[in-house]
């Protein structure tokens, strides 16, 4: 293992290079562009065996990835924001065809109005498209998740595509420390790709994507797709444990910090978890019983595990970097509150929406959120469930 200083995008491009898949199809979009261009350079330099398709749109990026993966090649792409939205139709099809494509998503706000900075509107909007979703906090987690994604996606119990998120600019463009595996270690960890029923098997031709309408098996196919998603829960844990044995950095569905005796727990996802952790330490020094739960696996959602981890909390504050228009709260909030419905006793749960379009999250904002949660913990009435951090008045 070696230590480097790299951007989040650089770290992910390096992870993909070390895996050296058969095909990459990609289209540039801010803030993912660095991955598309770094990888094109690896190909130009002969540093990888990958065939690169410089497609003319993200819809075609995902369509070509589907064709390539179904043909029998280990296949990757990467995107952000509008690109993610443009491939929306094909995301569902990749998952329903059970194709183990992997895709780093460098999260960015969705238009309109146009905004190139970080929030989770893109990936959270795609939370129900049938892909496994792993969120990373920093460049290291982006690198680690990008590698593990292959093992999870290609596992015989799963066979589903995996997207791994890092926060646009905040992580993708910032230089940070990175522990890097040797190429051979990565190759050994991910192993060879074994396609199932590939189109290119001349002896066994196959029809992929048949018409499955009324009188067909569409419903049954959807149920089995969801069963694969449920099985992924264990596979993600097993792969995370094995990766830990290799690197000293074990992964599970989430990470906790100081929650054992915490009365107030903040739940966060992505880079903000680092900010919250710093504030938890500061507030602990003041004697406040505060903790953090950082979510890594959002799909499949680790309901039971999270419920158990949060069972001691009296008040929970869920931090969402995307809003959900007309819903009861942000996507992470609605999952957490639903998970805690069966907790006994049931904690109070509040939602803090922050950082839309790259708006900063300051220490004061987190302290303000905790102050509000403390009021609730003290039995004071807190009128609203959903609160916006660092937003200007009307």
């Amino acid at each position, binding site marked *: 293992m070696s230590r480097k200083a790299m951007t989040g995008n650089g770290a992910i491009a390096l992870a993909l290079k070390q895996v050296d898949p058969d095909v990459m199809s990609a289209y540039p979009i801010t803030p993912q562009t660095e991955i598309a261009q770094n990888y094109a350079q690896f190909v130009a330099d002969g540093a990888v065996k990958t065939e690169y398709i410089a497609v003319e749109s993200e819809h075609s990026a995902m369509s070509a990835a589907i064709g390539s993966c179904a043909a029998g090649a280990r296949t990757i792409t990467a995107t952000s924001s509008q690109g993610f939205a443009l491939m929306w139709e*094909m995301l569902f*099809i990749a998952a329903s065809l059970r194709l183990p494509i992997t895709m780093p998503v460098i999260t960015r706000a969705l238009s309109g109005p146009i905004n190139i900075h970080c929030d989770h509107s893109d990936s959270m909007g795609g939370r129900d498209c049938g892909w496994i979703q792993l969120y990373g906090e920093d460049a290291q987690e982006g690198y680690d998740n990008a590698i593990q994604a292959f093992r999870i996606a290609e596992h015989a119990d799963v066979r589903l595509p995996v997207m791994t998120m890092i926060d646009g600019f905040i992580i993708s463009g910032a230089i940070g420390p990175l522990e890097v595996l040797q190429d051979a270690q990565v190759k050994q960890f991910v192993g060879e790709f074994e396609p199932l029923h590939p189109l290119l098997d001349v002896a066994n031709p196959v*029809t992929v994507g048949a018409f499955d309408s009324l009188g067909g098996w569409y419903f049954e196919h959807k149920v089995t797709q969801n069963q694969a998603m449920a099985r992924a829960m264990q596979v993600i844990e097993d792969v995370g444990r094995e990766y830990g044995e290799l690197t000293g950095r074990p992964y599970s569905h989430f990470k906790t910090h100081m929650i054992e005796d915490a009365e107030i727990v903040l739940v966060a996802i992505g880079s903000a978890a680092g900010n919250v952790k710093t504030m938890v330490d500061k507030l602990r020094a003041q004697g406040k019983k505060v903790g953090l739960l950082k979510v890594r696996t959002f799909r499949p959602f680790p309901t039971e595990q999270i419920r158990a981890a949060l069972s001691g909390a009296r008040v929970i504050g869920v931090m969402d970097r995307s809003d959900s228009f007309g819903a009861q709260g942000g996507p992470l909030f609605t999952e957490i509150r639903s998970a805690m419905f069966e907790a006994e006793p049931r904690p109070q749960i509040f939602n803090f929406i922050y950082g839309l379009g790259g708006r900063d999250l300051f220490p004061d904002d987190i302290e303000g959120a905790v102050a509000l949660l403390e009021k609730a913990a003290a039995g004071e009435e807190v009128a609203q469930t959903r609160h916006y951090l660092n937003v200007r008045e009307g």
Partner: protein
Amino acid sequence: MAKPKEIANKPERLTGGHRLCAGCGAPINVRQIMSVCPGPAVVTVSTGCLEVSTTIYPYTAWKDSMIHSAFENAGATISGVETAYRSLKKQGRIKDDMYFVAFGGDGGTYDIGLQALSGAVERGHNFVYVCYDNGAYMNTGFQRSSATPCGAWTTTSPVGKESYGKTQNRKDLAQILVAHDIPYVATASPHNFKDLMSKAEKAFTTPGPAFLNVISPCPRGWRTPGDQTIALSREAVQSCYWPLYEVENGKYKINYKPKAEKKTPVADWMKKQGRFAHLFKPGNEAVLEDIQAYIDHKWEELLKKEECL
């Protein structure tokens, strides 16, 4: 090209039992084209009649591997398949020589799939794209596409007090592909099977992208009897509504030039189709004249291109 008898004895690559309508031009075209494919193929079909009728789960009419994923992306899908093949072949993980072909209707090619097709041919993937052009969105029940001829009734270019059907001329798709400077572009028709099959063979064996635009009568949408498909294809060519030509590395060749007395008025062809019936009521003479003038203009233009290029 192999003799017709040899071709007729080759195993079918699109089997019977599919559920396309009687008289549909699409399977006739597909069978003729696939019969000259020199080796195992992977086929992709954009969403449409051909796709839904040949792959009703758990059945398939395709003897080669086939993938369908969506409507607008046949060009991108086949790009992915062909690239996977190149990658695995280079690595020694595949031994066979294989061929790649995409079939799209006019909706999936002229309209919603034009970008993916343009991207795929610009990148130079080694594949054949076949548009089976029946002149409207027939699968959803006859809506106009940019391939629908002027004057045709469709449900979204309806005939009414203020409308004689589609008021615009067709998009000239073959010329758009020619403008991509790809090695091979051709138009064809199922009535002239020798011409169609020799063009398909050229398309398969030409390295790089090749494009075939094949007329494909639709008895339901054209409002014609199912046994007139081949006759209507022939007359489309004879009237110069559907000229047969090929452009090989930029060089034009018209494969059939009707002599002046044999070039039939396009109205004769239109009269046989219910989708144009309204044009033959009094008051539409000028529309018919305009349609004929446009056909003649395009034909003259093509003759000039052949002469100059």
